[in-house]
């Protein structure tokens, strides 16, 4: 298929042009290039998707051999199946809307060109990631999106805090990436290839289910996925990454990049099926993350941090789905989540944009009538997030929960945990809606979102509402759990829980039936709130365990401890110099005498040897 290579090329080319223009390009042209290139990619993706939907044929394209050493021949090659089509559609589709939105959001920014250059580069890298036919090219995209994430989080570079957040995002994900890197090495060393399809075949033929090697390999890959998708224990970077512009958060830290880990596991699902312990670990990590992030989201003040924690939590659901073997459901949730979380972020961005960059939800309020488009977008997004019936989130999350239920053994526990998470989701998402859009107004908006912002919001609203009815072309590509025979009681509980969450949120934050203040003021409540607010103190823990020791070590070594040895040599020779120098008196007679002394000695030795 000849158009395949055009898909990543458009944004890449546009990024190159924008970089080469060195910021001198007119804004209109930059906007046209930035958004237009992604739009063109989206059109190409649509063409590819149409072909795929029509015939279901896998499309492959090899551009060139990246490098060839012995039998190590990774290629720059694309592999398009249903999974890739879904991912590409999300990336280019949602990506285009966010680019459109960004034009208005960043119109007044001095680095407008730079922003679109980074964004386009990101889209290109993300497309490479999902289109790659081998793990090394995937890793290229993987690191590429990481670098773009770093650049975009630190986009407003003048504030050192943004820089710190960007570095944290990169370094923490890099920890996971390194694990993945080792995983690639292990896979290549053991199986002799990194091309995904032959790799799966080789793994299936060489390894048995439950062998050590596949467990090790998948555990290392999981490390990468955990880092990129902000799961426990490497989730700490994502809330800080909200320092970037809001559309960036929407695209990178909600819709696409952070779900790359989910994609990675789904892409290599055959490998993971060989390693049940890893798969179980995936499920438990997902569950633990979704609960932890859910509780944390309850206590936050910053509108974007709440959404960030909700993203972590929702990706936890995807991991849960993958862990219980419902790969297709995981990807389904990935897609719906991309819609409604992008919607939420963009709506939040509109709120922030209209309220002079206000992030604290307690200084908002009463925006329902002042920003109606934003309100309705946010409401729809929150409904989908909370998985209220008939929104897109409902279908995907329900599928995950039911899949968890059907898993023998640990299934019901996972289901119960997921349910608790759903309850939390209901509470925190509507807490947000009620506090921001209802009640008294604290800050007046000074402008209304323009057509680009509104347009993007409306399209995403529609997608968030109807996204649940899409039939993904994943049959035969990814396995899924059959949950047709789950009892109705379980289904009703699954449906009812988010509603319960909504009710609780209403009572606590809008209806004032229960005083949240008195709860929060009690010593236990306060402690718990602080604990949740700090993200379960995990950041502090890492700081004390890893960051500070590293800094101490670096500071301690700063002046080169190895040089101590060489300096000791220097000191020794200096000392010897000081001693020996006294022999050099400068007196000719002394020299003559020592010469004679040496002569006498030498002759004595010679005489002794001769006799």
């Amino acid at each position, binding site marked *: 298929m000849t158009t395949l290579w055009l898909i990543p090329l458009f944004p890449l080319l546009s990024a190159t042009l924008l970089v080469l223009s060195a910021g001198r390009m007119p804004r209109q042209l930059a906007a046209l290039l930035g958004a237009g290139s992604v739009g063109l990619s989206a059109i190409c993706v649509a063409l590819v998707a149409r072909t795929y939907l029509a015939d279901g044929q896998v499309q492959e394209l090899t551009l060139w051999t990246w490098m060839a050493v012995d039998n190590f021949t990774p290629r720059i090659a694309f592999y398009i199946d249903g999974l890739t089509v879904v991912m590409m559609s999300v990336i280019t589709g949602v990506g285009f809307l966010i680019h459109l939105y960004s034009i208005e959001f960043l119109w007044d920014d001095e680095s407008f060109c730079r922003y679109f250059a980074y964004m386009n580069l990101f889209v290109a890298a993300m497309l490479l990631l999902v289109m790659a036919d081998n793990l090394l090219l995937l890793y290229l995209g993987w690191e590429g999106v990481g670098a773009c994430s770093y650049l975009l989080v630190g986009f407003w570079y003048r504030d050192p805090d943004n820089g710190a957040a960007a570095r944290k995002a990169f370094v923490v994900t890099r920890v996971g990436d390194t694990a993945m890197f080792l995983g690639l090495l292990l896979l290549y060393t053991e199986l002799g290839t990194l091309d995904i399809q032959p790799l799966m075949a080789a793994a299936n033929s060489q390894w048995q289910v439950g062998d050590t090697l596949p467990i090790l390999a998948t555990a290392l890959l999981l490390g990468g996925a955990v880092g990129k998708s902000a799961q426990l224990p490497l989730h700490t970077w994502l809330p800080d990454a909200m320092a970037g512009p809001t559309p960036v958060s929407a695209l990178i830290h909600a819709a696409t990049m952070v779900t790359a880990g989910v994609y990675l596991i789904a892409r290599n699902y055959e490998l993971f099926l060989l390693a049940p312990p890893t798969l179980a670990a995936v499920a438990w990590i997902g569950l633990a993350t979704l609960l932890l992030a859910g509780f944390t989201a309850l206590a936050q003040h910053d509108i974007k941090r709440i959404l960030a924690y909700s993203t972590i939590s929702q990706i936890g659901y995807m991991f849960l789905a993958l862990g219980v073997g419902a790969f297709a459901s995981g990807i389904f949730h990935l897609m719906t989540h991309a819609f409604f979380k992008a919607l939420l972020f963009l709506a939040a961005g509109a709120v922030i944009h209209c309220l002079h960059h206000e992030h604290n939800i307690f200084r908002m309020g009463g925006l329902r009538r002042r920003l109606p488009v934003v309100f309705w977008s946010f409401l729809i997004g929150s409904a989908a997030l909370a998985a209220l019936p008939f929104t897109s989130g409902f279908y995907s999350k329900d599928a995950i929960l039911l899949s968890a239920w059907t898993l023998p053994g640990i299934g019901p526990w996972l289901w119960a945990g997921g349910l608790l998470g759903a309850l939390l989701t209901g509470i925190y998402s509507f807490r947000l809606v009620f506090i921001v859009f209802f009640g008294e107004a604290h800050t007046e908006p000074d402008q209304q979102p323009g057509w680009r912002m509104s347009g993007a919001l409306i399209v995403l609203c529609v997608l968030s509402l109807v996204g649940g009815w899409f039939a993904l072309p994943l049959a035969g590509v990814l396995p899924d759990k059959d949950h047709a025979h789950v009892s109705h009681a379980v289904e009703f509980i699954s449906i009812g829980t988010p509603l319960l969450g909504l009710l609780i949120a209403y009572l606590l934050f809008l209806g004032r039936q229960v005083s949240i203040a008195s709860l929060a003021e009690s010593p236990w409540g306060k402690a718990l709130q602080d604990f949740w607010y700090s993200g379960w103190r995990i950041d502090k823990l890492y700081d004390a365990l890893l960051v500070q020791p590293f800094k101490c070590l670096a500071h301690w070594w700063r002046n080169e401890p190895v040089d101590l040895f060489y300096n000791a040599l220097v000191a020794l020779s200096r000392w010897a110099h000081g001693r020996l120098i006294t022999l*050099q008196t*400068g*007196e*000719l*007679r002394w020299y003559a005498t020592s010469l*004679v002394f040496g002569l006498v000695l030498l002759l004595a030795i010679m005489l002794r040897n001769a006799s």
Partner: protein
Amino acid sequence: MGGLQIPLEHVLLLAATLFSCGLMGLMLRRNIIFMLMSLEVMLNAAALAFVAAGARWQQADGQIIFLLILSVAAAEVAVGLGLVLQIQRRFKTLDMDQVNRLRG
């Protein structure tokens, strides 16, 4: 013909004694002129040993080495005495214990 038959060791003994005397003078005297004289004595002693050896084996080589020693002595004295003048001019003394600029 035209030469004596003398025990070689006696000549060498004399050379050794002269050499030791010169050496002692070198170590003893502080005046650079006397040091140079001591050097001359030592060179001369060495030359004596060579000539004696040449006489022992009836070879010209001994005398040739004497010639070389002679030229070394000449050159040495020429430069050495020039240095004596310089030292006297610069340090106003010929005491080599005071001329110790090379002390480390």
